Structure formats: C-alpha cells, structure tokens
C-alpha cells in the first residue's frame, strides 16, 4: 500500500501548471516564489504591483498596490470591507484574517492610526513579499501574526470591534474558516457592538452555503456588491436602522477624513433576508466542522438566483 504515486501525480500536475504560467504572461514579473502553501507571483504594471497565487492570474489575483499612493484601494471590494467602520459601536481594535498584500488593513491603519490593527496571515512568504513590494511595515498599532486564522482566534483572549475575513485565497478554500463553529469563535471575539465583514465570491454554490452559515451565527446580514465580489457585513442583535448607520458614517467620515466615504457606501447597502429563499438557495446547507464540502460547492455554478 503506497501513497507515493498520489503525491507524485500531484507534483507532476503542479509542474505543468507552473509551465503554463510562464507561457502566457505579458506583464513584468518582479519575483516568483514558491512558499509552503502557494506559488506566488509578483507582477509590475506601473504604477501598480500585484500579487497572484497559482497559475491562473485572472482568478487568483490576491492584491493590487498603487506604488504612488499607499492609501489607494484599486480593488473595489476591499473598499467595501471598510464599510464595517460605520457599524462598529466603538473603534479600538480591528482584526483581519487573510492579509495578502495587506491593502485593506494598511488603509485602515493609515486613516485610523490610533486603532490597533492586527492581521493574521498563514503564509510567511506572503508577508515577506508584502513587506518587500507592497510598502508594508510593522509599526505601532500595525501588527502581523503568522498563523492560521482560526488557530489565532482560538488562542486569543482579545476582543475586536471589527473582524475582517478574506481568507479564502486563490485555489485554496480552507473549510475550517467557513464553518458554524468557526463563526462562533469569531463571535466570541467580538467586542460589544462589534461587526464582521467578509469577502465572498458569489458565482458558485459555495456562496449560498457560506452566507447561510454566517447567518446561522449572526442574525443580521448586509450585502455590498463590488464587481465580482460581495462583501457581507454581519452582526448580532437587532437590525441597525439606516439613520443610525448614517449618523456614525457621517461622524467617522469627518473624524478620520476617509477617502472612501462611508456615507456613499451606505447608499449601496442591501439588508438581506435569508428566510424568503429569493437571495439564498433554500436547499443550501449550513457548513459545519463535520460537513463542509467546500471544494465541491465551489465547483457548482450558481444559477437562477438574483443577487440584490
């Protein structure tokens, strides 16, 4: 009985993929690095630098950095991740799970220098390349932990006002970051009035299950549509009224001088009702540590259901 044949098969497949990436590229490749988890490519197309994983650049772009402007967020959904700022009751600490090139957390750090921003990234090479090419440096109130996101939270005793989740990257969908048990751990680490924002890619059935799973732990869901992605903002308790959110949005836009105005984002807010079954497939299952077929769900295209 032997597992070697399986391992060699996988290796051969990976090599073919790398070769394909070389063949099709036209942008200027600054560096490629094989890490513990990914084949990472850093490309330059002035003034932008981008990081991609795996061999499919179209799908697996992780992060884009404007080298002339470190507060620019060129990828639209990352702007909507900051919509979470108008939900949190207090703003003392922010946690980001899934750092990548670190644009979102760096933006938050630059505009809210007095708020402790912590990012958790599994892949040490991603952090290394972010520091080398994406203008990232660790400094007071900006910390990066090299850890599995769930493990970090399980072991942490801290609470956060905002938890941003953007951890399924490139070809990898870590199932243990998409289960009800995981979101329960997230909830346990939210401060009073805290909020979760998660980037979810809406083209496959994984979207329905992911949203339903978030909803199993957080009763309130708001969607923000960005091209190709949906940012889900989730929180506990009663639904926040638009006028209350507007109050906080106005205050914080002014207090921090935010480039991407919370007031403008608020106009894009869609409060979601799961129960009707119009938005989310009623047959979609809540994912648990026991049952989470994330790869399979990701392979089923989403049909016939309108996104708000």
């Amino acid at each position, binding site marked *: 009985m032997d597992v070697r044949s399986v391992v060699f098969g996988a290796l051969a497949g990976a090599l073919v993929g790398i070769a394909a990436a070389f063949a099709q590229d036209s942008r200027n490749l600054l560096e490629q690095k094989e890490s513990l988890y990914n084949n990472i490519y850093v490309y330059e197309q002035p003034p932008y630098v981008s990081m991609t994983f795996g061999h499919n650049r179209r799908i697996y772009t992780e992060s884009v950095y404007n080298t002339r402007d470190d507060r620019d967020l060129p990828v639209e959904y990352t702007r909507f991740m900051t919509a979470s700022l108008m939900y949190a009751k207090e703003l003392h600490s922010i946690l980001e799970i899934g750092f990548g090139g670190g644009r979102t957390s760096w933006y938050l750090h630059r505009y809210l220098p007095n708020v402790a921003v912590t990012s958790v990234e599994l892949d040490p090479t991603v952090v290394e390349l972010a520091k080398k090419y994406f203008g990232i440096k660790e400094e007071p109130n900006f910390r990066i932990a090299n850890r599995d996101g769930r493990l970090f939270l399980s072991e942490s005793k801290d609470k956060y006002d905002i938890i941003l989740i953007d951890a399924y990257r490139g070809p990898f969908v870590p*199932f243990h970051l998409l*289960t009800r048990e995981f979101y329960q751990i997230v909830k346990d680490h939210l401060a009073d009035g805290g909020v979760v924002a998660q980037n979810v890619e809406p083209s496959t059935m994984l979207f329905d299950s992911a949203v339903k799973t978030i909803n199993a732990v957080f009763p309130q869901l708001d969607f923000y549509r960005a091209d190709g992605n949906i940012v889900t903002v989730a929180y506990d308790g009663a639904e926040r009224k638009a006028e209350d959110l507007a109050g906080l949005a106005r205050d914080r836009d002014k207090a921090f001088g935010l480039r991407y105005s919370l007031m403008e984002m608020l106009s894009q807010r869609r409060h979601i009702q799961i129960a009707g079954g119009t938005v989310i497939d009623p047959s979609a299952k809540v994912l648990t540590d*026991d049952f989470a077929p994330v790869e399979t769900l990701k392979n089923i295209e989403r049909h016939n259901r309108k996104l708000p």
Partner: protein
Amino acid sequence: MTAPSRGSSLAIYASAFVVGGVLMGFEMLGSRYLFPYFGGSIGTWASLISTVLCALAIGYFAGSAIVSLYPSQKTIGLFVLIAAAYLACVPATADPVMEKILSVLGDGPSATLTAATALLLVPLSLLGTFSPIAVSLLTRTAEDAGRVAGLVYGVSTIGNVAGTLFTTFTLIPAVGSRAITYIFAAVLAGCAGVLFLPLGNKI
C-alpha cells in the same frame, strides 16, 4: 504450504482491496478531524502522511513477525475487526482528544504528529498487517511468492486509489466526516466477517 480454496482466495483479494480503500479514505478524513484544531497547514498534511506510512511500516513488520505463528485468515479477520472497533470509537472521542492535545502541546509539529498518531496509528497499523499475512496465506510454493506478493500489493494499491478518490469526491461532499467514519467501521467489520467465514480454508 497449504493452498487456500478458490472462495477463500477471492475473499482475501477482495479484502485487500477494501482494506486498502478504507486505509487511504481514512487518511483523507484525518484532515477533516485535524484542520479545525491545528489549521490547514502543510505541516498538518505532513503529519498525516508520515503517520500513515509509519503505521504501514509497523503493520508490515508486525505482520512478518507473527505470520509464521498464526498463519490464518482468522488472524487478519481479527485485526481488521479491532481496527473497525477503533474507528467506531473515533467520532465520539475525537473532539475532546484534539482539544486536549491543542491545549497541552499547542499547534506545532509535535501536536499535529500526536494528533495524527492518536487518530490513525492504531487502526492503520492493524490494517497494515493484512498484506504480509495475506501473501503468506495465498502462497503455495516458493516460486509462487513473487507472483502472489505482486498481486496482493497491486490489488491493495488499487484499493488505496479508489479509497482516496471515492472519499474525497463522493463521500465528503455527501455526508459528514463522522458518518463516513462509521461507514468505514461498518465496511471493515463486514470485511472481517467475510474473512471469518469457513470458505474451505484447507483443501
């Protein structure tokens, strides 16, 4: 050497396939038990794979050591049955055990190796004894040994492949990890039952 009957040979080859399938299927399932506690890192996979291979080495050595003492179908049937019983205990006990390991050892290599060991080592070592004993039971003459060994390992490796793919692409998407573990336990118990049947062990 006494030749096994036709029915008996068939039962042994079929069991080699099934045991091979469950073995790799349970390794794939191991990731579902470990990831929530120790993260989805390459270290967790390395621990799982090395533990499986260790278990196989132990099984092969143990099998070769005892094969001359207890060369019977009942011996392998018994080992498969004990492995089935171990698997049947896993769903109810895995979470407290993983939690304990996480709290005592953290999440480094020693923790993932310990967790993989707790989960896999005992049942897979028992299943590892299958092939050497099966080869011995099926071999009639000394010249026959190579041919039989090749067949047993070939069949069992095809079982490995089938178990890996079936678990990953059919079982995990359809039912929960705990249920799959019970299915594996039941399949192994059935396999042990077949091995216990008096299929004319000796002519």
